[in-house]
């Protein structure tokens, strides 16, 4: 019920696929998605494994809600050890893959080993086959997907990588249906395994214990909650709405975080995108539909989303919407994370303009900017160096103080100098500079909480991290702003037992500690829970946060308060008592 109680394990070295029962005890404690994937990865990997070696694994995790009619439950979590950070990464992707995997009869898919030659894995219910992907190697994600649709049917979900993943770019992604598991280099992990794609279609039932009661609940939630005004922005504008919000709050990354307000913001905001009349698209069983499909001469793109507009737009000093859309489309096809590549380019632009190292890139130079995705994905020319990512580039050439990354993962689009809690969220996120662990910016820069104080922020970040940990484990999309109480109602119905809010809160904390344990085993230390120097030293220039930094002493105090509230020691290691209490 709700689970299929089965996982599929495919070993690419031996070419064998095996079905095995889902670990019920773990499912009870970690549910699915981010949490259950992290638990499996922690238990199955040895510490210190090279992320691009055959010993790393990729876990594709659905959750108890996948395949059901619960709105916004179409996401798949991809969990592995990241080559960009050496930390655990979980990256989620929408579309239809998660539901197809569930309909095929699996809660989890675990990929291990390394194929000798390029392959793709085809899953059709119980039948699992490994096919040669020699003819697909070198092709873009869309091209690969179309070829595999032709062969296996249009209803088959395809998760694939592009040339960037094949060439082991550390910020390469996997894509499906114009969406991406973007962060942490999932594409390169697949590439290192010679795994071009996974295709999946299923015809099995997904069931719930009491269908009538379940439908009654979901119908009520659909009208009272999902389709209420709170969530309407998702459909009406989608994430580009945040451009104006960030700019107004003075936290829109501009020219590699040298400023927080961009003079060209109005050229790349939601209004401009809506004026182009995008087609609206939703993931499987999403009642909202955040996708804006834009067409331009010679192509189209689902997006650009806010993060792309920020990092590959204002971050690079570019306010040409069509250029950003083309850049976005190319990154999607080549299989690269636009957040990281945007950061890499803007870092190289600043390095060039400051005369530290000439990459031939300048802020606002559209023509050169548009050449970068190809050069980086194929590691040609300066792309060879840019493909190192911001951290390694700065270690090699300097500029470390404005290398905008945490733990090796480039920062997303919310400047923490104007949202101090967000700084703590970035510093403590398990996958590095990440906006999907907690999002205090909603209350600070976009809300009523004073962004320029550390008071109460440690608790705010912790609460957010637990909330997202459980939400991304069930697995639900970020964009449905549902309460823990609503989650509790859904889960009680789906599991046919009382699942109180307190249980979800504890599970969220357990999952967070699990992620931390993984990174502790990999040798991460308190010094890794930090932020780029620029955040501590260079004041923002515009708007409300003008003149502001996040002072380092204040940050350190906030971090210690965070550890203490978490029941971790002063070095940020979970204490045995805390782990016992949480039954990790």
């Amino acid at each position, binding site marked *: 019920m709700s689970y299929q109680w089965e996982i599929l394990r495919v070993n690419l070295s031996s070419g064998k696929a095996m079905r095995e029962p889902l670990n019920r005890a773990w499912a009870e404690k970690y549910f699915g998605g981010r949490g259950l994937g992290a638990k499996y990865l922690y238990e199955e990997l040895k510490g210190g494994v090279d992320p691009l070696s055959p010993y790393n694994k990729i876990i594709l995790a659905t959750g108890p809600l996948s*395949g*059901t*009619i619960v*709105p916004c439950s179409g996401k798949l979590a991809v969990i592995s050890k990241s080559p960009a950070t050496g930390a655990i990464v979980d990256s989620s992707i929408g579309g*239809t893959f998660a539901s197809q995997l569930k*309909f095929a009869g699996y809660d989890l898919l675990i990929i291990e080993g390394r194929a000798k030659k390029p392959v793709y894995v085809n899953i059709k219910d119980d039948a699992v086959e490994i096919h040669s992907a020699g003819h697909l190697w070198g092709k873009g994600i*869309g091209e690969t*997907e*179309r070829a595999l*649709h032709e062969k296996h049917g*249009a*209803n088959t979900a395809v998760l694939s990588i592009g040339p960037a993943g094949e060439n082991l770019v550390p910020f390469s992604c996997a894509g499906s*249906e*114009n969406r991406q598991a973007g962060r942490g280099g999932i594409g390169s992990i697949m590439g290192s395994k010679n795994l071009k794609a996974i295709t999946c279609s299923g*015809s*099995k*039932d*997904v*069931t*719930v214990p009491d*269908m009538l009661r379940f*439908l009654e609940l979901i*119908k009520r939630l*659909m009208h009272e909650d*999902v*389709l209420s005004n709170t969530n309407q922005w998702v*459909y009406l504008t989608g994430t580009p709405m945040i451009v104006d919000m960030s700019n107004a709050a003075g936290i829109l990354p501009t020219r590699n975080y040298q400023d927080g307000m961009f003079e060209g913001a109005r050229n790349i905001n939601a209004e401009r995108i809506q004026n182009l009349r995008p*087609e*609206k*698209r*939703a*993931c*499987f*069983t*999403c*009642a*909202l*539909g955040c*996708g804006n*499909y834009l067409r331009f001469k010679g192509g*189209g793109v*689902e997006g650009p989303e806010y993060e792309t507009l920020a990092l590959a737009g204002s971050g690079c000093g570019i306010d040409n919407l069509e250029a950003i859309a083309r850049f976005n489309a190319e990154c999607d096809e080549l299989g690269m994370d636009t957040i990281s590549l945007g950061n890499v380019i803007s870092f190289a632009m600043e390095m060039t303009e400051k005369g530290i190292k000439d990459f031939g890139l300048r802020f606002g130079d559209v023509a050169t900017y548009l050449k970068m995705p190809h050069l980086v994905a194929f590691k040609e020319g300066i792309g060879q160096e840019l493909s190192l990512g911001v951290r390694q580039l700065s270690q090699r050439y300097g500029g470390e103080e404005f290398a905008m990354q945490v733990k090796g993962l480039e920062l997303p689009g919310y400047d923490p100098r104007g949202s101090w809690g967000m700084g703590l969220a970035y510093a403590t996120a398990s996958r590095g500079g990440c906006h999907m662990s907690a999002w205090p910016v909603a209350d600070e820069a976009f809300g009523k909480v004073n962004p320029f104080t550390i008071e109460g922020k440690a608790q705010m970040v912790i609460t957010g991290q637990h909330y997202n940990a459980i939400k991304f484990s069930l697995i639900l999309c970020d964009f449905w702003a549902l309460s823990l109480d609503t989650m509790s109602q859904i889960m009680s119905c789906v599991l046919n037992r009382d699942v109180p809010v307190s249980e979800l809160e504890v599970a969220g904390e357990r999952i967070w500690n699990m992620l931390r344990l993984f990174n502790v085993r990999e040798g991460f230390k308190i010094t890794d829970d930090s932020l780029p120097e620029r955040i501590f030293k260079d004041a923002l220039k515009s708007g409300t946060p003008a003149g502001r930094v996040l002072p380092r002493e204040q940050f350190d105090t906030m971090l210690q308060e965070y550890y203490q509230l978490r029941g971790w020691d002063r070095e940020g290691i979970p204490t045995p008592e805390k782990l016992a209490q949480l039954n990790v």
Partner: protein
Amino acid sequence: MKLILNEEKCTGCKICELICSATHRGVFNPEKAHIKITFNDIRTASEKQLKACTLCLVCMKNCPAEAISFNGKWLMVDSELCTGCGQCVDICPEGVIHMDNNEKAAVPDFCQGNPSCIEWCPHQALSKAESAA
């Protein structure tokens, strides 16, 4: 009666397929739905098409057991007569007839006049029209 899709409003979320199989079969399984939304290209969700009963009555006309009938609004199956041969499943041009758990034909009945897909569509992309066969 027939179902009509407003392509502009449809986001391709497939909630219609899920509610159909849930209502009729008590499970979530798009393969068992009497409605399908297909795309020319799933990547862009372009050229959406609705697959649903058009009341062409090909199934009824070709049923060797004469188990399928038409009441003027929707199809019905006499499960006493149905032999479970599956001809209707194969012949349905829309692909929306299936075999049920008892190996009898499950034919589209527009939820007896109040299709749950219309009720559940979050963007009011589905509507119904009365029409004679």
